[in-house]
């Protein structure tokens, strides 16, 4: 079976600097792969190549067996849900309009969009009667992020990309949304690529963790194995779990 996403020897170079070097990774259907790394490790760059926001300098990113460069970028993006930090909601559009955006672009009839949007808002824990008509500025950070997730799910895309989605939230809201993420994954079984620099979050949501270090894949392991990983960068991240017990 063709993997939904496959990075093949992907490099990305900008201004003489290598952001990503010879990165290869197959993402299996239904799994949540976490790209973990420090700022500047290339994780967000790798993510943005999947929906063709960036083009590889060398190598190929395959989505459903076709290189992203041969897809019509509009078609490609409409079948990939995308959630970013601070959600990136349209400030001039209501919650309902934000969530229904992609179905509307796809020409879905208004009544069907409405039903779908209300169902999604229920799923992410925002009762539509209370939230559908609000504007993003009338929501808390956590609520905005829930809307962001609902929006990404609206056109029922088989693949979801998360770029540090919960990075700007307070710790309590963050845990709530991580739980919700796991619940949605259990229910929907979609393939997801999830970028974070938080090793706890990675261990919680991942089926596999890909650790990036200076643009290279340093470790690729399931969470249980990642805890035993040996490499220096992996140790550095694991040390964050218990700063007291940092190795000398």
């Amino acid at each position, binding site marked *: 079976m063709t993997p939904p996403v496959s990075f093949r020897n992907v490099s990305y170079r900008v201004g003489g600097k290598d952001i990503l070097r010879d990165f290869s990774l197959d993402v299996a259907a239904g799994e949540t792969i976490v790209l973990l790394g420090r700022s500047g490790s290339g994780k967000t760059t790798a993510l943005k190549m999947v929906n063709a926001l960036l083009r590889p300098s060398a190598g190929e990113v395959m989505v459903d067996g076709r290189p992203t460069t041969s897809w019509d970028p509009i078609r*490609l*993006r409409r079948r990939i849900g*995308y959630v970013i930090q601070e*959600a*990136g909601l*349209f400030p001039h559009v209501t919650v309902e309009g934000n969530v229904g955006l992609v179905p509307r672009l796809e020409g879905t009839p208004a009544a069907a969009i409405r039903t779908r949007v209300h169902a999604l808002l229920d799923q992410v824990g925002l009762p539509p009667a209370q939230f559908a008509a609000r*504007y993003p500025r009338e929501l808390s950070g956590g609520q905005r992020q829930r809307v962001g997730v609902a929006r990404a799910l609206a056109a029922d895309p088989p693949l979801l*990309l998360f770029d540090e989605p919960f990075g700007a939230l307070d710790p309590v809201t963050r845990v709530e949304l991580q739980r919700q993420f796991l619940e949605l994954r259990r229910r929907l079984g979609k393939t997801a690529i999830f970028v974070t620099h938080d090793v706890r979050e990675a261990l919680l949501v991942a089926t596999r963790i890909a650790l990036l270090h200076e643009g290279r894949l340093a470790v690729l392991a399931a969470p249980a194995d990642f805890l035993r990983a040996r490499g220096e960068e992996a140790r550095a991240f694991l040390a964050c779990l218990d700063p007291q017990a940092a190795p000398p």
Partner: protein
Amino acid sequence: MTPDLAREILDLTAEHLVLVGVAMAIAVAVAIPAGILLTRRAPLQRWVIGFANVMQTVPSLALFGFLIPLPFIGGIGKHTAIVALVLYALLPVLRNTLTGILGVDPAVRESAVAMGMTGRQLLFEVELPLAARTILAGVRVATVTTIGTATIAAAIGGGGLGVFIFRGLASVDSTLILAGALPAALIALAADGGLGWVEKKFSPA
């Protein structure tokens, strides 16, 4: 006030409104699309904004004068006056279009692109609505300035309320000057208030 003067005030006010209306319509029709185009052509921004800036620094009386000898757009009369007014009105509209669109939150633009919006959808459904208030503020500033500057159009036979002002200056008659200046000021105030009201109808970006 004699009935003759009252009648002339009305006629010249109408003429003034036509000058301003036509000039602003042209300026908006040129500057907004040009501003949008410039957001897609970063290297050109400096040159075009520079040109519009220079136009603004030319004293208005001089600019009207410079235009007179030019073929097609120059000469004596209304069309020359309108060309000059358009040149003045371009900058505020152009600059605010550029500022408004470039000021759209990059995260909002990125998510619009990532959700599969075409360039056109991004412009009409995201960038322009979010920049509308800033663009309108530019139109308002340009309109108010143009109403004042249009009084100078009379110097090159463009008509409008400036006719009273120049006539009053020549005959040292302050009543005549006021007959031109007061309606012009009132029009400017009304335009400022009206466009300000429209501006507030748009949500802040």
